[in-house]
């Protein structure tokens, strides 16, 4: 056996490695947490990495997982080896094809990083809900529990499927295994070659559809034979477990790693046994070994092959001594009398009893654990064993949560630590997403694991916020393989690092520190004074646990060495210098080597400054003497103010304090319904600089609130006397312009703790001081005193009344921006190009808006807990929001409209029926109301209030029905919001249908030209020549012209907008779209960090996109046709700058000049021509003479 090569990789890469080597066609589609498998495959193919047969696998991105499954089905039918990767909702979309592929006995392996399904809420994290939904498809199901097993089982599955002809679903736990970085043995190509039997490959090919010897498959069968046809496959399933076991044995002979269908671990005479599959096995192994070593009769059955379920193999693995068995499922099937694995085990034992193979039935209970990556620890496993010792043990239990509602949960002792923790060095790092902490830690794992005899494990907790995301890295090192499939818990870490000075006030990070651990803090305060900056509890913990304390001013060193705000190398250096894991000199040499690898070809200067930072870090690191007494008088401030609503104080605040795991079931809404407007309670305070308003220069144009991605700069107009009570520093001046009454003042106010400091408000500000052109009417300032002052001013500002919306003319920016935004402080990226569009819509229509939101960035910053940004006006009205799926958003939104229309119809009918009792004037007003304007809507609301009052005095069922429906008489605005991945790709069929259906809905496409939320994968909106994931060699096709396709219907309002290029056009388009009584499609250009350009240039990029012809602005209004006018209006000039001038500013384009220079040049020429011809086409369309439509099409 050759010396195995050790690699430090994550589960996704391990699966992709085998899949790429053993397949010819790979169809992919992004979905968390499976996307990296597709990305690896795409990258390797773009680098011409070959498979076993010496060819480069064809990797193709499809429009959805359903599409990927279809493509795979076809590729397999044509005789190729084909695979795909997915998870969660994506797997559900593949189910129809999975039945077909299995029904046709087709060998293939589908790799799944198992993830929760969207039910009461979406979750991207890991459990087995998705794979369990595939039990009936006929796929074999093989489960890996660790990164090593992912690579091993991927190959075993591939070998077994070829032999057994049954397709395999190979799955492993999303995030816990897919994203865990671990040191594993890489299977060498010769072993893979030896496992894949060429004769079986040929046999597969021989069965392919081939016109030289044609057959027909996929027939339609009738009652006479379908049933028999279904039964033909039995023999294949019966022999499959044996085939898998043989392949496991072959694999063992080649690699030394022996697996079984079911594996037992624990006492030979175990009485209490648990069964489970997936990553939880790691925690269970540690607990069982610990308890068995102390004489407890406990054991563990690890389930590998879940389908076909082999009862004989299970019973063979289960010790006959087992009296109490707990079967754990990482899924939930509401309404079932137990989860799938539990029921299989019960059935296996019951069958054995019935058939006389067993004489006694053990007590078997089922339990649920680990949903959505909920922690599952050795302590919980111990809790289960303790439960099994009870008589009777609780059945259908849960573990890992507190269920105070139906009392399913087991108790466990969180302080329990298994023996396995001994000899393990555990380290925890708190960092910002953008400071490079995670990549430095991945690199540290590599350095230690690959450079020494140690095994290493890295697991990373991420944030759901995109601006100022917080990461917690959990690193373990040990001489023995690490099986700990859970986070580093309290009192377990021998090293704790805080990479952000402000975190000490927010996170109880020293809870994790073990006695005698090292604590490293990045702080601008010097070693002699830093102690006084810490909260009292933190000081006490340091004293009580006897911690060693080090401090480094990493931001200063980063600035001095030209590293900007990137502190990762500095903190990594300190980690190695004081953790003692490696000799310092060796570690530093390794870090420098890693720097060389990252930057070596990117420039000498980068290398030099990284090296300088490393050297300066060693010099700047200082040990702090920990005093004997805690001296600090401050504790952490309350997370939310006392004035917050009860739900926010009880639930939201607990989530914000990172204590959500402790919330009991009873505090959770049962149906996924949560209050809106909670971001205002999450004061994140992440801006380094804030805008300051210069009242002498400002013309009150309103551009700054328009472009702010986080609604953190606002304006209000109010009677001047109200400012009398304002704090001294609160700024207000008489509003300019004749549209407002005398004596009214305006204030522009920044929400100091909610601003992200992107600077777009300053960027857009058109007013400069003539004497000092650097001074604008808004300027960024880092002044901390200003920050504190504006916090107070913001509170005062919030208390000022809103201006009467019915007196504003919304198509003027100045007026529109006085409207209250009902979308605020979202978790979107700093400088986000999408959110200003949503915010604008909520200003214009928010108080009567229903939103259907496609899954993606906008559903994450729009609806990801702990807090959500859609908010309410002083009357309590505001957008109401739901996210159905990724693929069905247009249909979902149409459903909202259909329901509203039906309710209006019914309400109007009831009004008519009750007319004699309601009164003629009111009835007439209600039924003929013109609600085209804010005034009209205001008046209708008053009529509805009057109607309610009337109904109080009217008896009868009809009056009660009308009471329930009368709100619908006020015009509602239905918005269907999503990104280009939805509108151009996965949801296009629905978009098309809803546009064609002619109903009054507004589709807002936030076009970032990639799948932003999953990491920038190519969509059909991606422009020609742009580099994106899945288009590593540049996208070879043009961007799809969605607007043109929609205009072809002729009854759809269509507008292409870019608020950073022409804000007035954007506002007009929104107003026109909403007022159009039919389908509207707004496509908003949305610069994104995925474009490889700093988002402080968001507005400039929009301008360049428009000027270069990449993003022409236009509005197509079918109402104009009725007036005899051309419906299309072009709102921008012909391309006025070379396309090159636009694309050279974005890395997504410019990187291709380096990687594929000739293609880059070719694409550029084509794109230049394309933008010119497209503009000319639009122009010609806009100039066509139009005959007045004789009558409106129905």
């Amino acid at each position: 056996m050759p010396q195995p090569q050790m690699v430090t990789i994550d589960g996704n890469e391990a699966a992709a490695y085998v899949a790429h080597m053993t397949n010819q066609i790979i169809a992919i589609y992004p979905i968390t947490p499976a996307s990296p498998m597709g990305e690896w495959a795409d990258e390797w193919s773009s680098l011409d990495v070959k498979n076993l047969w010496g060819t480069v696998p064809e990797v193709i991105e499809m429009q959805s997982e359903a599409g990927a499954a279809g493509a795979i089905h076809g590729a397999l039918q044509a005789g190729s080896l084909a695979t795909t990767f997915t998870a969660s909702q994506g797997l559900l979309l593949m189910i129809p094809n999975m039945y077909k592929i299995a029904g046709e006995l087709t060998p293939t392996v589908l790799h799944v990083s198992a993830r929760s399904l969207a039910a009461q809420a979406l979750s991207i994290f890991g459990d087995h809900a998705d794979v369990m939904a595939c039990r009936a498809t006929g796929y074999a199901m093989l489960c890996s529990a660790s990164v090593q097993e992912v690579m091993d089982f991927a190959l075993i599955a591939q070998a077994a499927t070829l032999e057994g002809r049954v397709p395999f679903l190979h799955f492993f736990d999303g995030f816990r295994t897919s994203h865990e970085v671990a040191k594993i043995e890489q299977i060498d190509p010769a072993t893979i070659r030896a496992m894949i039997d060429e004769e079986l490959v040929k046999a597969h090919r021989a069965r392919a559809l081939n016109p030289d010897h044609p057959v027909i498959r996929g027939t339609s069968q009738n009652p006479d034979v379908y049933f028999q046809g279904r039964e033909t496959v039995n023999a294949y399933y019966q022999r499959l477990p044996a085939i898998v076991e043989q392949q496991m044995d072959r694999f063992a002979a080649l690699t030394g790693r022996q697996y079984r269908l079911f594996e037992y671990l624990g006492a030979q005479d175990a009485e209490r046994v648990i069964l489970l599959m997936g990553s939880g096995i790691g925690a269970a192994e540690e607990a069982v070994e610990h308890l068995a070593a102390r004489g407890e009769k406990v054991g563990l059955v690890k389930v590998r092959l879940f389908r076909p379920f082999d009862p004989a193999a299970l019973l063979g693995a289960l010790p006959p001594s087992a009296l109490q068995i707990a079967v754990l499922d990482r899924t939930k099937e509401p309404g079932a009398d137990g989860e799938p694995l539990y029921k299989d085990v019960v059935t296996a034992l019951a069958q054995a009893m019935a058939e006389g193979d067993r004489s006694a039935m053990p007590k078997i209970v089922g339990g649920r654990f680990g949903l959505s990556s909920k922690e599952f620890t050795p302590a919980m496993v111990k809790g289960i064993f303790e439960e099994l010792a009870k008589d009777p043990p609780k059945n259908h239990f849960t573990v890992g949560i507190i269920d105070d509602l139906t009392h399913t949960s087991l108790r466990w002792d969180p302080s329990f630590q298994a023996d396995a923790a001994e000899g393990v060095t555990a380290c925890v790092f708190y960092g910002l997403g953008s400071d490079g902490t995670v990549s430095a830690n991945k690199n540290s794992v590599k350095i230690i694991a690959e450079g020494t005899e140690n095994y290493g494990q890295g697991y990373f907790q991420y944030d759901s916020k995109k601006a100022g995301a917080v990461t917690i890295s959990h690193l373990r090192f040990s001489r023995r393989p690490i099986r700990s499939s859970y986070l580093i818990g309290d009192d377990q870490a021998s090293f704790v690092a805080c990479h952000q000075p402000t975190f000490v006030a927010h996170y109880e990070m020293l809870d994790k520190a073990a006695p005698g651990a090292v604590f490293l803090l990045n702080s601008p305060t010097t070693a002699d004074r830093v102690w006084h900056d810490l909260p009292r509890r933190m000081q006490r913990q340091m004293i009580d646990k006897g911690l060693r304390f080090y401090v480094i001013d990493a931001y200063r060193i980063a600035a001095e060495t030209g590293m900007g705000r990137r502190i990762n190398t500095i903190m990594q250096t300190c980690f190695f210098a004081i953790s003692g894991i490696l000799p310092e000199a060796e570690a530093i040499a390794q870090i420098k080597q890693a720097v060389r690898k990252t930057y070596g070809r990117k420039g000498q200067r980068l290398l030099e400054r990284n090296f300088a930072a490393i050297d300066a870090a060693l010099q700047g690191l200082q040990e702090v003497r920990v005093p004997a007494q805690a001296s600090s008088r401050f504790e952490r401030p309350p997370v939310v103010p006392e004035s917050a609503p009860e739900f926010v104080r009880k639930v939201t605040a607990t989530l914000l304090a990172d204590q959500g795991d402790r919330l009991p079931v009873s505090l959770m809404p049962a149906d996924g319904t949560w209050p809106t407007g909670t971001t205002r309670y999450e004061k994140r305070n992440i801006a380094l600089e804030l805008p300051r308003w210069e009242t002498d220069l400002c013309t009150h144009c309103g551009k700054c609130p328009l472009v702010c991605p986080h609604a953190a700069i606002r304006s209000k107009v109010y009677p001047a006397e109200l400012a009398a009570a304002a704090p001294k520093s609160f700024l207000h001046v008489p509003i300019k312009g004749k549209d407002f009454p005398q004596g009214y003042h305006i204030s522009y106010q920044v929400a100091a703790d909610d601003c992200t400091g992107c600077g777009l408000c300053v960027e857009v500000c058109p007013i400069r001081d003539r004497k000092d052109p650097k001074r604008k009417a808004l300027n960024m300032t880092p002044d901390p005193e200003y920050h504190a002052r504006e916090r107070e001013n913001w509170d005062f500002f919030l208390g000022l009344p809103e201006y009467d919306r019915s007196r504003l003319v919304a198509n003027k920016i100045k007026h529109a921006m006085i409207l209250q935004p009902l979308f605020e402080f979202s978790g979107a990226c700093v400088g986000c190009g999408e959110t200003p569009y949503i915010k604008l819509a909520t200003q214009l229509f928010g108080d009567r808006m229903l939103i259907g939101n496609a899954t993606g960035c906008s559903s994450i910053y729009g609806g990801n807990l702990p807090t959500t940004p859609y908010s309410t006006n002083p009357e309590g009205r505001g957008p109401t929001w739901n996210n159905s799926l990724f693929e069905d958003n247009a249909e979902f939104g149409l459903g909202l409209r259909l329901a509203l229309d039906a309710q209006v119809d019914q309400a109007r009918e009831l009004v008519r029926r009750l007319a004699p009792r309601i009164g003629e004037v009111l009835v007439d007003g209600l039924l003929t109301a013109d609600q085209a304007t804010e005034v009209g809507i205001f008046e209708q609301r008053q009529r509805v209030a009057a109607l309610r009052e009337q109904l109080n005095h009217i008896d009868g069922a009809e009056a009660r029905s009308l009471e329930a429906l009368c709100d619908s008489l006020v015009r509602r605005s239905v918005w269907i919001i999503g990104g280009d991945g939805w509108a151009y790709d996965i949801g296009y069929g629905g978009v098309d249908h809803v546009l064609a259906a002619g109903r009054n809905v507004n589709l807002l496409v936030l076009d970032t030209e990639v799948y932003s939320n999953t990491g920038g994968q190519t969509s059909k909106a991606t422009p020609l020549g742009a580099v994106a994931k899945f288009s590593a060699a540049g996208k070879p096709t043009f961007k799809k012209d969605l607007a043109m396709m929609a205009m072809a219907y002729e009854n759809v309002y269509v507008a292409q907008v870019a608020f950073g290029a022409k804000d007035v056009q954007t506002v007009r388009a929104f107003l026109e779209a909403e007022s159009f009584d039919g389908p509207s499609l707004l496509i908003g250009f949305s610069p994104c960090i995925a474009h490889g350009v700093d988002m402080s240039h968001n507005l400039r990029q929009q301008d360049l996109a428009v000027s270069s012809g990449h993003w022409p602005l236009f509005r197509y209004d079918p109402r104009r046709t009725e007036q005899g006018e051309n419906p299309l209006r072009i709102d921008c000039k012909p391309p006025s700058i070379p396309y090159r001038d636009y694309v050279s500013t974005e890395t997504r384009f410019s990187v291709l000049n380096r990687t594929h220079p000739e293609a880059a040049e070719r694409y550029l020429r084509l794109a230049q021509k394309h933008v010119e011809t497209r503009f000319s086409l639009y122009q010609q369309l806009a100039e066509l003479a139009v005959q007045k439509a004789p009558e409106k099409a129905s």
Partner: protein
Amino acid sequence: MDLTTQYLGFAIKNPLVPSASPLSRSIDTARELEDAGAAAIIMWSLFEESITAESESSARFLAEQDTGFAEASSFLPDHADFAPALDLYLENLRKLKEALDIPVIASLNGITPGGWVEHGRELEQAGADALELNVYYVAADIAQSGSEVEERYLSLLQSLRGQISIPINMKLSPSFSSVANMAKRLADAGANGVALFNRFYQPDINVASLRLQPSLHPSTSAEALLAMRWIAILYGRTELSLGGTGGVHSTEDALKLLLAGADVVHLCSALLARGPAYLARILQGIGDWMEEQGFESIAEFRGRVSALAVPNPAEFERANYVNVLDGYSFSPGVMI
């Protein structure tokens, strides 16, 4: 007829040398230039800023993509360890050397002393026959004196000279108090030739957006007159090879520079506008003119109208200015 001339120590077959332009990026167009008769070729310029900017942006947007988001650890693929600008340039240089028989002159464009100038050695190793150093420097610092600016040129040249042994050609701007003296000092510092003059691409103001925008206008024949004057002044007074560059669009433009004393004439805008084959027409034109004038070789007429040769050298100096002003009249209808 003998069209040969000396340039940077090489005997080349004629005096037409295409200057740094995108034409040398493609081996095909470079071959077309050679086929059209180019006697040597100056490669497109390797810009210091592009090397720096590229390394900064690839660091920022490719190597340092950390996000902290669970769903996206990065946004752009950074898997291929692609070649940086310098490597591509070296590769291009090697290919040109393989494909062409004429001398290939590499071109470095930058303003910072030290650092990247060391790349000169790599260019030499990759086979460059000579190196052109284009110090595209706008002396915008009001505290910086003219002599400090000159010092910058000289120190750049010296540091490059320290790295390489192949000939160095300095491409100069006309913004010197004393162009002739500067040329002399460059020669003393180790330069082998000068190209007169570099064109600064002037920024423009967009009156709609009130913002600056880049502007790029091709040269015109009128611009060649500036080079012609200084070549005429320098001819016979320096060991440096003299190259006339900027504004050569016709045979006549080229002849004027040769008559003023240029060893070679550089072409750029004309070739970009009319294609590489246009070089052959200029060359043909030179031959035709020589035949018409009865010259047998370039040497016979080179410098015939230089400051040394003309009866009144002051015509190259202020007198010319006065004459031109006197001869200029405003268009009718323009109010002054």
